[in-house]
């Protein structure tokens, strides 16, 4: 079933580069005295949540901020490594707002909303100014100015960074702004609290039900609006680069209460992660895309060499230059190792499937820094005035340069794999990293539930079918610092005379008792298997059938398999302990239950979308060279699903994508 009538993206009229300014000028404002009468709940304290909560509080709203971690600083934005994009053009390499906008729309394979992306590019430069003012210690050059590097899918250097810990530094900046508002009493922090449901009163989101994760107490929290900054749902795959606690529960509850879920099948599989080592594995670790500035990706040219490596009879350093296949440089000469993530991941899979993979499992390719070490070493020798340096000296100097750029990543690799990546190439393989899909939002970042907003990775709007590197941090902070604080005024302006929202209305009481029932039901399932057993099983189903490559037959079967797994879960899960206490197993069970529903919707969406675009690769739709074959005539729309009581029966609504500023073309990185 489809319906075209229910979605209004509320994109302002006018030329693309005037829309945001014009919209800001026309948005309803709430005056400072009235802001003091309005409460806003922000769920999640990552880049989007912390920045939104801090900004709303600075403006005068009363904010309640929630995070399930013990401190807001631990939200998973902290783990982002490589950088944040901004169209500053400090390198004078031809960058501009338009180019960042264009790269992002093209990178997303023409499945993002043009107006939102342009706004993102416009505010990108403010983010860098803001962060520097907050004391974020970005990398600098010797002249004292900010340094930049390149990321995939672009031909300029617009990425600002703080070694391999950019996310950490940006989040600590937002956390400090949040902490300042907490100290002023403008934000009340609820750490170790998890959102269990969204409460809707008279058609508007007016609060949440939360669980105190220490005492187990179920609480009702009311507000005039609810902002979800709860991140992505990559953990539906069990193994991903997400933190263990990252989950879809808040977004899924909003979905069940009427918020449409958009493009749920658009998942980003990141090409450079540390390969899986065994069945016990609980998570995967990313090696930043920034490494592809200097690392070259290859596999052996000959199958027998690959086999010998897998058997431990040959080392990568013993493979001669002419026997190596630098397959990205071969297939995509214009972008080489810096093609976008979806392209790089598929190319790695293609080589491994063809029998050229390395590692014991055959599921890995090399990321090699030997050339970079030599190149930097020679430059450094020249700078230091060393004539005819020995190979050893060149390597020593080059190693220092590479270490200064990526030191912490190399250390991380060595800790996990127990090999020194300065001496032997890294082994890498694609892994689930980010979800472009999420709650459908209009231009104001409001979901289809009035008063319920979604920011950052939790929404769908800016990255289309594939996100470019260093753009997640940009979007999280853009939404939280510079977009939502303005657009939320348009909704809240109607609430200046509403007064406090009661938290004991029938709607709140009903939602509270439903949450309690669900937890009791989980605790009373008298099965034999821990929650992780089901999560792993779901993850494997999703990875094999709704991962890097998908086809109709497998997707149909997987939908059946997931439904069966849901039944098995209720029959055979064992959740120890009680609800009224600290109980991490109960938390997990509650989250996995939502993943078991989301997984089905993702497969349904992947099945419905009969084309290949970005991270969504349907085997039936590819060119002779194995590139994604998009179908603009029939699928140039956002799929937004309405929950109707069963994930498989969700109703599809389409937001037709209109491109006025950009000509829609076949995406090529050759």
């Amino acid at each position, binding site marked *: 079933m489809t319906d075209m009538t229910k979605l209004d993206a509320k994109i302002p009229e006018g030329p693309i580069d005037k829309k945001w300014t014009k919209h800001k000028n026309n948005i309803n404002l709430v005056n400072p005295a009235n802001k003091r009468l309005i409460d806003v709940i922000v769920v999640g304290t990552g880049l989007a949540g912390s920045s939104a909560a*801090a900004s709303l509080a600075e403006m005068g709203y009363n904010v309640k901020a929630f995070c399930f*971690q*013990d*401190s807001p*600083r*631990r939200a998973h934005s*902290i*783990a982002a490594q490589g950088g944040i994009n901004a169209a*500053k053009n*400090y390198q004078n390499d031809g960058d501009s707002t338009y180019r960042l906008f264009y790269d992002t729309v093209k990178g997303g394979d023409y499945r993002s909303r043009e107006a939102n992306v342009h706004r993102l590019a416009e*505010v990108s430069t*403010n983010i*860098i*100014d*803001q962060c*520097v*003012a*907050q*004391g974020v*210690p*970005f990398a*600098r*050059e*010797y002249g*004292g100015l*900010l340094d930049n590097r390149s990321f995939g899918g672009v031909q300029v250097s617009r990425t600002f960074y*703080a*070694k391999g*810990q950019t996310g*950490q530094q940006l989040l600590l900046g937002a956390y*400090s*702004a949040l*902490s*300042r508002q*907490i*100290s002023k009493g403008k934000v009340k922090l609820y*750490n170790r609290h998890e959102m269990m449901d969204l409460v809707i009163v008279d058609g508007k989101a007016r609060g949440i039900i939360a669980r105190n994760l*220490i005492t187990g107490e179920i609480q009702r929290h009311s507000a005039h609006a609810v902002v979800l900054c709860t991140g992505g749902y990559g953990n539906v795959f069990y193994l991903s680069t997400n*933190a*263990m*606690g990252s989950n879809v529960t808040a977004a899924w509850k909003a979905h069940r209460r009427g918020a449409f879920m958009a493009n749920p099948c658009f998942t980003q599989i990141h090409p450079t992660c540390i390969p899986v*080592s*065994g069945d*016990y*594995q*609980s*998570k995967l*670790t990313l090696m930043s895309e920034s490494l592809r500035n200097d690392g070259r990706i290859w596999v052996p040219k000959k199958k027998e060499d690959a086999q010998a490596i897998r058997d431990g009879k040959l080392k990568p350093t013993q493979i001669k230059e002419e026997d190596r296949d630098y397959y990205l440089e071969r297939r995509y000469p214009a972008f080489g190792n810096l093609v976008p993530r979806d392209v790089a991941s598929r190319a790695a899979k293609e080589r491994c499937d063809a029998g050229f993979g390395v590692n014991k499992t055959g599921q890995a390719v090399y990321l090699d820094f030997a050339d970079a070490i030599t190149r930097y070493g020679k430059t450094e020798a020249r700078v230091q005035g060393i004539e005819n340096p020995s190979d050893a000296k060149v390597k020593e100097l080059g190693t220092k340069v590479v270490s200064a750029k990526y030191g912490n990543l190399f*250390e991380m690799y060595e*800790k*996990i794999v*127990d090999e020194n990546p300065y001496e032997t190439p890294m082994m890498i393989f694609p892994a689930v990293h980010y979800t472009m899909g999420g709650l459908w939002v209009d231009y104001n970042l409001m979901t289809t539930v009035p008063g319920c907003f979604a920011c950052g990775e939790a929404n769908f709007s800016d990255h289309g079918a594939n996100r470019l590197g260093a753009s997640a941090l940009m979007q999280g902070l853009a939404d939280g610092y*510079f977009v939502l*604080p303005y657009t939320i005024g348009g909704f809240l302006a109607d609430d200046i005379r509403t007064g406090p929202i009661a938290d004991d209305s029938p709607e709140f009481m009903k939602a509270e008792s439903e949450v309690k029932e669900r937890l009791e039901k989980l605790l009373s399932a008298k099965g034999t298997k*821990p929650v992780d057993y089901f999560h792993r099983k779901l993850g494997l189903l999703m990875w094999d059938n709704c991962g890097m490559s998908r086809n109709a037959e497998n997707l149909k079967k997987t939908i059946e398999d997931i439904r069966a797994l849901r039944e098995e879960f209720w029959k055979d899960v*064992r959740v*120890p302990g009680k609800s009224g206490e*600290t109980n*991490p*197993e109960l938390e997990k069970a509650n989250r996995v239950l939502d993943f078991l529903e989301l997984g089905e919707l993702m497969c349904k969406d992947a099945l419905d979308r009969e084309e290949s675009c970005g991270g969504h690769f349907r085997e039936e739709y590819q060119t002779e060279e194995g590139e994604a074959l998009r179908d603009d005539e029939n699928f140039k729309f956002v799929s937004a699903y309405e929950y109707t009581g069963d994930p498989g029966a969700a109703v599809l609504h389409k937001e037709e994508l209109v491109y006025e500023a950009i000509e829609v073309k076949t995406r090529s990185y050759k």
Partner: protein
Amino acid sequence: MNLTLKVWRQSGPDAEGRMETYQVKDISGDMSFLEMMDVLNAQLIEKGEEPVVFDHDCREGICGMCSMYINGRPHGPKQHTTTCQLHMRSFKDGDTIHIEPWRASAFPVIKDLMVDRSSFDRVIQAGGYISVNTSGNTLDANAIPVPKDDADAAFDAATCIGCGACVAACKNASAMLFVSAKVSQLSLLPQGKVEAAERVKNMVAQMDKEGFGNCTVTGACEAECPKGISLENIARMNREYLKAQLTPGK
């Protein structure tokens, strides 16, 4: 490998705790320490016993949530390594491993190995920020050049993950390394100099109020810090503090 685990079990903040002994079998050297704990917990659940509660999240050494005291050392035997990045290849078949929570009165135990570190958040709330609103209308980011050495030193201090290993390692349960890392980051940058005096005084006052001990410069914090935060930061904070005391009107 097969291991004997001696794990601190404590059902709540006011309950009495005790060490319990468990056996785990067929542990691979490539497993992380927390994956080994997952194996233990799966085993306990299957037997109908309560799993061990511990904090963890990113499992890649950056969120600062994991916090185990392993064989008498915060985060265990490897230098510059958080518990989640410690791999079982650091242990041998037949080893007995003691696992306890962080111990400090400012970090009360919540349950088993989980402690309450919100005192750290309150220290940051006391002044660990630069007072600028998020207007987007600040100076251009390149308007004030920052010498690379200062920027790099500020970054090194800012890599603190707030895990609390420094407090757990210190015989006085002092938080000086944590607090000084933030004070250093902001005092090294021109943007942070404006309110440097108030910042250091307020943060130190809050640190004392939370019940952290004093610093006697033993250096255990630096030795055990998984991110290698340097003792120099404590010296810098002491200088900043002295300067603040001597600044008239501040």
